[in-house]
């Protein structure tokens, strides 16, 4: 069984100097998932990297939530396309002459 590490939303916001409302908005837009245990919100540590990326988009690059949603979607597509490129390059190597 894999151990899950949960970070309390309040503590996360305090340590990152961000508003709790921002985290709630991300959840409402389906960008992150908040786990509620006994009325306290937690974030799975596996989401930390993505969440910090959203924070940088919002607070540092001045990108609004709609923009973050669009960018996230496009970045996922880039990821898939990069995987496809690697796969195609490897397939192409089969036909390359030494």
């Amino acid at each position: 069984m894999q151990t899950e590490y949960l970070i309390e939303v309040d503590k996360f916001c305090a340590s990152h100097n961000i508003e709790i409302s921002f985290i709630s908005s991300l959840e409402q837009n389906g960008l992150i998932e908040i786990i509620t245990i006994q009325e306290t919100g937690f974030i799975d540590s596996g989401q930390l990297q993505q969440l910090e990326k959203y924070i940088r988009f919002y607070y540092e690059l001045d990108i609004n939530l709609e923009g973050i949603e669009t960018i996230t979607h496009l970045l996922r597509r880039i990821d898939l396309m990069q995987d496809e490129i690697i796969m195609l390059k490897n397939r192409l190597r089969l036909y390359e002459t030494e």
Partner: protein
Amino acid sequence: MNMNFLDYYKILGIDKTATPKDIKSAYRKLARKYHPDLNPNDKDAKRNFQQINEANEVLSDPEKRKKYDQYGKNWQHAEEFEKAKQYQQQSSNYQRPDYSGAQSEGDFSDFFESLFGGSAGARRSRQANYRGQDFNTELHLDLLDAFKTHKQTLTVNGKYIRITIPAGIENGQTIKIPGHGGHGVNGGPNGDLYITFSIPNHPDIKRLGNDLYTKVDLDLFKAVLGGEITIDTLKGKVKLKVKPETQNGSRIKLKGMGFPIYKNEGHFGDLYVTYFIKIPTNLTDKQKELFRELSRSEF
């Protein structure tokens, strides 16, 4: 140490009379274009971002901008300037946007470090505890290395890391080593290390996923009459029965003789062997006559 002069105004696309608002606007515009979060695995974008970040670091701070304007092209005199003005002891309350996610120790140019004393001279306005920067590196393996699970020691930012590379890793595949990236900021967790594998083609054996492809020369007589040959595979030598009347370019499959399946121990792909029939050369007159005789036969 390469300490070429960097024209921070040119990097941000502004002129020397630019106001703080112009600088901020130019920086934001370029940051949105080159931020590493928006340009995954793009080394050029990362380099550009580091330059615009550095340019902003200097030009958005009135003290640094003044020093840069005065000594920029003559950075060699910066130290004298330092002594004279004891710049480092001055404090600045200036606030600027801090693009923390992509900037870390060592991300500033030698030029910047010579003028302002390295990334320690950079300001951090938001005292958040961020996880450290992710590191990306490339590791070259040959096909035989990738065939077996093995350990390798890497040096990442001066630290030795011993990793286990599972058999079956693929060319272009990236694995994550958690916690071996940059140190977290203000007590945040460390970033991760991403290793992308580069596995060049083997001269005799090609790979597609878990399957391997090889070519084997077959003499004409064995192709016609059938027989037995021994071929080299990554698992060692293998004896093959050649069927009579084997055609040039025909392919056989050796099940389970391919590449190990990644993280699926004991399971392998297949090996495809393509026969290339070699026509005999330098035939004697007698041999040629025998072929002529054969050609007169009806098939």
